[in-house]
């Protein structure tokens, strides 16, 4: 997961840099020993499998409507019942993993890459960049993530690329802030003064010297953001500004069917809701374990 860096650094550097790097194989073994991590990873792998092979696994075609079997209760034929258009709920839940996972993963990756670059610049270069970007970060933070994303998605019109870019951009300042404070801690350490004395250029110091040492902080931030991205995408879909029908999606399927809850058709909303909850809990179990292992 974390690269162990180039082999055989000069002896002088070993004393400073060695500590976090040697910890990595142990960290991986510590993770695998944690039941919470295993549980979370199993849940995540299950949904990743659904996302990749959903159309093969699903017992029915998630798009096919059976107008003679609408709102059918769970049975041996349809384990999770059918929705208002007679579509198989189980199949829609399985295939529904695809878009939400794809969007959240790409959005979080985008935000992490931009945020890391920005955070490195803010933390290491400081000065005007730090102040200007810091103010913009403040301003974006003054609004809940869902509201900012909502505002921009409404303005641009909902589509998958829009969701990815908007959520990625909204996450950028948040991740930049975390990376910045991690960089500030690093910049007080001796190895950076050595690098500066050796006459290394700023980009080299930022990306070659500092970056490997703030990877743990970025990793934790990435997994935390992944949870929030799922939150944001699911919420936007529920509000009608995310994945658009008829594409199977948990959030929009819930929005389409929660009107018939009072009539007793609970399976059409409850199963997608449980799918979202399980995905979020899976991500959090993994996040929490990684955080604990890195803190110890």
């Amino acid at each position: 997961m974390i690269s162990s860096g180039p082999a055989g650094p000069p002896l002088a550097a070993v004393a400073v840099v060695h500590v976090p790097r040697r910890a990595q194989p142990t960290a991986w073994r510590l993770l695998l020993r944690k039941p919470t991590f295993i549980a979370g990873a199993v849940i995540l792998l299950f949904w990743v499998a659904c996302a990749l092979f959903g159309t093969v696994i699903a017992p029915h075609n998630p798009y096919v409507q059976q107008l003679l079997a609408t709102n059918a209760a769970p049975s041996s034929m349809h384990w999770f019942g059918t929705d208002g258009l007679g579509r198989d709920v189980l199949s829609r839940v399985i295939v529904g993993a695809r878009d939400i996972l794809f969007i959240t993963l790409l959005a979080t990756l985008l935000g992490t890459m931009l945020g890391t670059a920005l955070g490195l610049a803010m933390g290491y270069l400081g000065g005007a960049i730090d102040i200007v970007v810091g103010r913009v970060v403040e301003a974006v933070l003054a609004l809940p993530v869902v509201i900012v994303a909502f505002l921009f998605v409404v303005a641009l019109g909902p589509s998958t690329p829009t969701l990815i870019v908007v959520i990625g951009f909204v996450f950028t300042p948040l991740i930049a802030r975390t990376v910045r404070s991690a960089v500030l801690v690093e910049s007080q350490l001796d190895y950076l003064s050595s690098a500066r004395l050796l006459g290394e250029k700023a980009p080299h110091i930022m990306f070659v010297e500092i970056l490997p040492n703030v990877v743990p902080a970025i990793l934790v931030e990435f997994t935390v953001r992944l949870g929030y991205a799922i939150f944001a995408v699911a919420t936007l879909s529920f509000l009608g500004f995310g994945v658009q029908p008829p594409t199977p999606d948990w959030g929009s399927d819930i929005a389409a069917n929660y009107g018939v809850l009072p009539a007793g058709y609970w399976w059409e909303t409850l199963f997608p809701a449980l799918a979202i909850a399980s995905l979020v809990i899976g991500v959090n179990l993994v996040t929490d374990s990684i955080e604990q292992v890195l803190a110890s």
Partner: protein
Amino acid sequence: MTTYLLRRLGLAVITLWLLSVIVFFAGQVLPGDPGRAILGQLASPSSVRVLDHQLGVDRPLLTQYVSWIGGLLHGSLGTSYTFRTAVGPFILAALVNSAKLGALAFIIVVPLGIIGGVFAALKVGQVPDRVISVTGLSFATVPEFVSGIVLIVIFGVELKWFPVSASAGPGASPLEQLYHLILPVIPLVLVLFGYIARMARAGTIESLESDYARTATLKGLKRSVVIRRHVLRNSLLPTITVIATQTGYLIGGLVVVETLFNYQGIGKLIFTAAQNKDFPMLEAGVLTIGVVYMVATLIADVLYTLLNPRLRLGSAE
């Protein structure tokens, strides 16, 4: 102290100005042609042009921004595309409703979160700590509509203990209103609990490991006294700031909860405005949320300064 407050206020003003630029950009620049967006693809170009002119969106962007921000400074939040009347009264009425819901959520979640966090810190690394941390974190990222729907299914539809709609209707007594707000408030409490508990836990752990806590223990004070007198006083200070920042997340949650439970608050207002492409209403609503958040954090910072003797007496940074 005064210079600190003035500096803090100055920064808040700059942030608000940046926020207005962001909101203006999203609301006026990105949608392209509001007339086309309102009338739809089938409308004739001439009627789109007429509407654009009526709305004033065919003017240069800078002119639009100056007139918009000038209006804001004079207390005019703009004119709704949908209702063709001033946005202000709608925002105010919605804000009052949301404040009721939000206040109820805070009254419940703040003591709960602090107790949970402190308890977890005292049992750090043990089972209660892990349970509180993981469930707190999980609930914090389970979208409100998911927990809301589970609650509606169980308590609204199956058991019929609580009404499914949050609006008690006109002329309802405060107690009746409260009864209608119980179900909607739970998803908000679940989301906020994790954050507050996390912060209270971190603060408590930090002060438990501090030198003064060790000194207090070493001079023979009972553990309960150490925790009450020395640890909690210091650990809960940062939590105040976190609670203020949660106002922002709370309002984000209101969009979903108010939509789900059909409650006429600021969240429902923003959602409806977004559906109708009523950008002035949307912008005013979002900006209002930003202002509420800024005021809340400002109050928290002042409170923090007043409560923390080190900041009160010494340098303001």
